[in-house]
């Protein structure tokens, strides 16, 4: 299998059409905060690295 082929976009959630300002409609809910994180990452991209599991 070619690992570069993204054949599973259907497993992801489509965020198109949403902006940070729209999120005020979701208040402080988990889903709002989660989308906010993604949109902020898009605004301020940085290399994602995985942190250690065994410490907070």
């Amino acid at each position, binding site marked *: 299998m070619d690992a570069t082929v993204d054949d599973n976009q259907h*497993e992801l*959630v489509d965020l198109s059409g949403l902006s940070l300002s729209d999120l005020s*409609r979701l208040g*402080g*809910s988990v*889903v709002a905060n989660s989308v906010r994180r993604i949109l902020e990452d898009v605004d301020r991209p940085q290399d994602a*690295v995985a942190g250690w*599991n*065994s410490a907070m």
Partner: protein
Amino acid sequence: MPLVRGHDRRRTPFREFVLKLHARCNLACDYCYMYEMADTAWRGVNSTMSDRVLDQVCRRIAEHVDGASRSVRVVLHGGEPMMVGVAALVSAADRVRAAVAPLTIVDVTIQTNGVLLDDHAIDRLCQAGIRIGVSLDGDRQANDRHRRYANGRSSYDAVDRALRSLSLRPDHFAGILGVVDLDNDPVSTFDNLIQYHPPAIDFLLPHGNWTSPPPRWSPPGETPYGDWLVAAFDRWYDAPVQETRVRFFEEVISLALGGASRLETIGISPVATVVVDVDGAYEQIDTLRSTYPGAVDTGMNVFAHSLDELLGHPAILDRQIGLEALSDDCLACPLHRICGGGYYPHRYRAETGFRNPSVYCADLGRLIRHVVPRVRADLAVLKGRLEDGTPDAGNDASPR
């Protein structure tokens, strides 16, 4: 031992340094990967990190970072790190910070079992800018199933007292780590942990693999851990206003939304963590001790090798190559971009190494297939409201 696949490619510098300041623990938790599982190498090492080792660690971190990263993270760990004493913890933090100042900021945290965390210790750690994470599995009954002193005595009262003090210092409270036990009710567990007002919680799956399966693990088709996580997720997700962060669940949602993971247990982001043992040996993440003796060893140490050199170690590279480290079974699965094959130690099988799905594959699938539709439904409702111009808030639309 076979590695998954090693490739020479762009390396991700280390940004998280786990310093094992003390090699012993004052508890005898029966699920501990350090002292109760496959690797017993801890019996042969010194109990504390010497000044000589710590100074060399600081030099190695400074030369590795060299101003290239604005911030790095240092985790004071063990064993039980509080056993070195608060003064030594503060000194370690000060020395690492001085080594990389002024270009790099060091976020120092300690992960402790909490039993030595009295008010004096909390005050000193807070004053030194050290954030504190505590391990607790739930209420007294949940804690006492596993987290006891060697003589069998409960550790709960001491940890409960520490957490109540820590809850009054939210700026210095990193959060609570709990290990999932199927005998503990997930909702009650969440409610018990949230009473301490932690800024973050995480639920760790007990360590196990295909050769040494987790407790009460069942063959694919049954998902007891997935079911547990789903119940905990719903408790967390359904709050009208988010009460705390739950790290693992946040990462699942982030990945489902197309983001990248910031946690090594899920997703395919490169792991940028190195562990330094008390004697200065570089190690891979020490949860690998749950697989086979010597699994964490790199054969490299702070005196003979730079961290740049360590980045070329095949085992370090294997944690940085994303999809290429996954098994063919994982690559054929539509969920792999979210689960990332699951946590690396959980993929181990004695015959084939780490190129396998996680032993928790079915459980992770159960959780992901629950989370994604919930998030998708809530966002669909939001989009509908935007189109209709209907003001509203909340996330109560998604199916349970």
